[in-house]
């Protein structure tokens, strides 16, 4: 049925109402996405007004650039460590806070979600102090327990900087996944559990028979959202380590930022080539998600 809004006299209004969104969407997403791919074929330093066409030269150089290859590795290492931990920790909290007998659950949820709303750049600044090797509380406690050597800089050492930043990132964003889990768990109707109880199922049995299978589709979505988040990590790393020490925390996004904006001679074409490769990762995540959705729909 055609709605009356679509009648001719209103068509002008339809266009006017769609215009602001369309312009902002085109100017800040569609056009830049196309331009990034175009720029990636240019040899262009930031001081020139326009670049020169150089074919796939930037891509060839990228795959021979140790710093870029390192940033690829760092991005994956970060993802492989941080995503499973955030996923499992948030699931555990979600299950605990969803149980009906749990006391003060909204209070706990409020506190666990708190870091999510805070400013990443500020968290970076505070955490530098909290993880300070000589005066920070984390080192005082860990040295007291004999877990680390005196004066060990967790954020400043090549072997620990990435994992320490990842833990801080998990801490900051765990509350987000927690909300995803709670929303998913609440979509399971209570009657199912009551029926299981009447049938004499134990808590563990009803978890395996009801909760786990019904949560599976949500778990996949939560996993994909978390992977997307982990690829996007930027402000925390920029303020915590700025990619150091020795590029051990330089993710692709930091590589793009440094190459395009802060290097002595900024290289816009080269950075755009890296951004194009980076965008492909998100395409993969999006394709997996839509493939999964389609399968679920059948």
């Amino acid at each position: 049925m055609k709605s009356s809004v679509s009648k001719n006299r209103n068509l002008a209004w339809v266009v006017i109402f769609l215009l602001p969104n369309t312009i902002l969407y085109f100017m800040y997403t569609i056009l830049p996405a196309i331009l990034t791919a175009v720029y990636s074929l240019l040899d262009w330093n930031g001081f020139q007004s326009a670049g020169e066409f150089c074919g796939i030269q930037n891509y060839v150089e990228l795959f021979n650039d140790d710093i870029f290859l390192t940033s690829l590795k760092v991005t994956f290492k970060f993802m492989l460590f941080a995503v499973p931990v955030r996923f499992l920790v948030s699931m555990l909290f979600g299950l605990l806070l969803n149980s009906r007998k749990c006391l003060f659950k909204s209070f706990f949820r409020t506190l666990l979600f708190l870091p999510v709303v805070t400013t990443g750049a500020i968290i970076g600044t505070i955490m530098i102090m909290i993880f300070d090797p000589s005066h920070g509380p984390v080192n005082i406690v860990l040295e007291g327990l004999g877990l680390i050597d005196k004066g060990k800089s967790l954020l400043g050492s090549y072997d620990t900087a990435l994992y320490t930043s990842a833990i801080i990132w998990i801490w900051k964003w765990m509350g987000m996944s927690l909300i995803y889990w709670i929303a998913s768990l609440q979509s399971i109707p209570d009657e199912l559990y009551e029926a299981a109880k009447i049938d004499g199922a134990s808590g563990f049995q009803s978890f395996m028979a009801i909760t786990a299978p019904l949560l599976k589709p949500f778990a996949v979505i939560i996993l994909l959202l978390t992977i997307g988040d982990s690829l996007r990590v930027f402000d925390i790393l920029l303020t915590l380590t700025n990619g150091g020490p020795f590029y051990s925390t330089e993710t692709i996004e930091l590589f793009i930022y440094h190459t395009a904006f802060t290097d002595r001679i900024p290289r816009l074409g080269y950075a755009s080539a890296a951004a194009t490769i980076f965008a492909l990762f998100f395409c993969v995540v999006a394709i997996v998600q839509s493939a999964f959705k389609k399968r679920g729909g059948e």
Partner: protein
Amino acid sequence: MKKMDFKTRCQGWAFKIRRTPVRYCVLALALLLVTLIWIYPFFWMVSASMKTTTELFSKGLDLIPDQFSLDSYYDAWIKGGFSDYFMNSVVTTIGAIAVVLLRCSSCGYILSQASFKGKGLYITILVATFFIPHGTTIIPVSQISTSLGLMGTRIGVILALAGGGQVMAVMLYKSFFDKTPRSLYEAGVIDGASFPRIFFSIMLPMSGPVTATVTILTFMNSWNNLLVPLVFMMGNPEIKTLPVGMMAFSGAYATDWAGMAAASTITLIPVIVCYICLQKYFISGVAGAVKE
């Protein structure tokens, strides 16, 4: 629940605790401990902001300052320039919220109520770009903004923050308007109201909860965003927002821990207060991503 006085509430809690099996009480205690450790960094931050830096360096774990001092707040606010950063953040954030609300509500309304050629395609393209992060588009965005004269201006930052897909906000509005009855629109037409009039005085006021959620999510994203203001403010330090100001401050005064903690507290207070007061909108905004 909210109307109850404190005593009745405590009695209610006591009753609830007494009826709860012991193992759940133990669980609650364990959770209490974990969550307090979880937000320890914020306690540490506030405590550090009221100590002197000498005291901070000498006794690490004790959270209570020897002498409460607000000097660091004065230093950060006046000398550190945080009063300017704060105002810039407020202006930028309000601007971004206004733009996002206008563009997303009108678009969501049309996508829900009107039918036109290519609507399905419009929505598909919109949703498909949901994942594109700022990091991959920032270079062309800065070039486009430079050529339009928006680089280094407040308007430029606001538009860049409010630009892009904003898929979530558009979809929240669309699904809200999907549920409004057709008869409302028809009643407006019968009363002789024009198309925009119906939208602004009937439809938009009705969408309060969605508007609240979108406002809060935009507030959080704009207040906290670092990359966009960082790139836009390279040529014009006058319009620095709090996160960018913090980077400059911690670069210049890296050993002034009390000052940095005070500056951090100043930056976080608005988001934290807003979160505590309007929690359910934050939560429903975030939960929307997984339900959709």
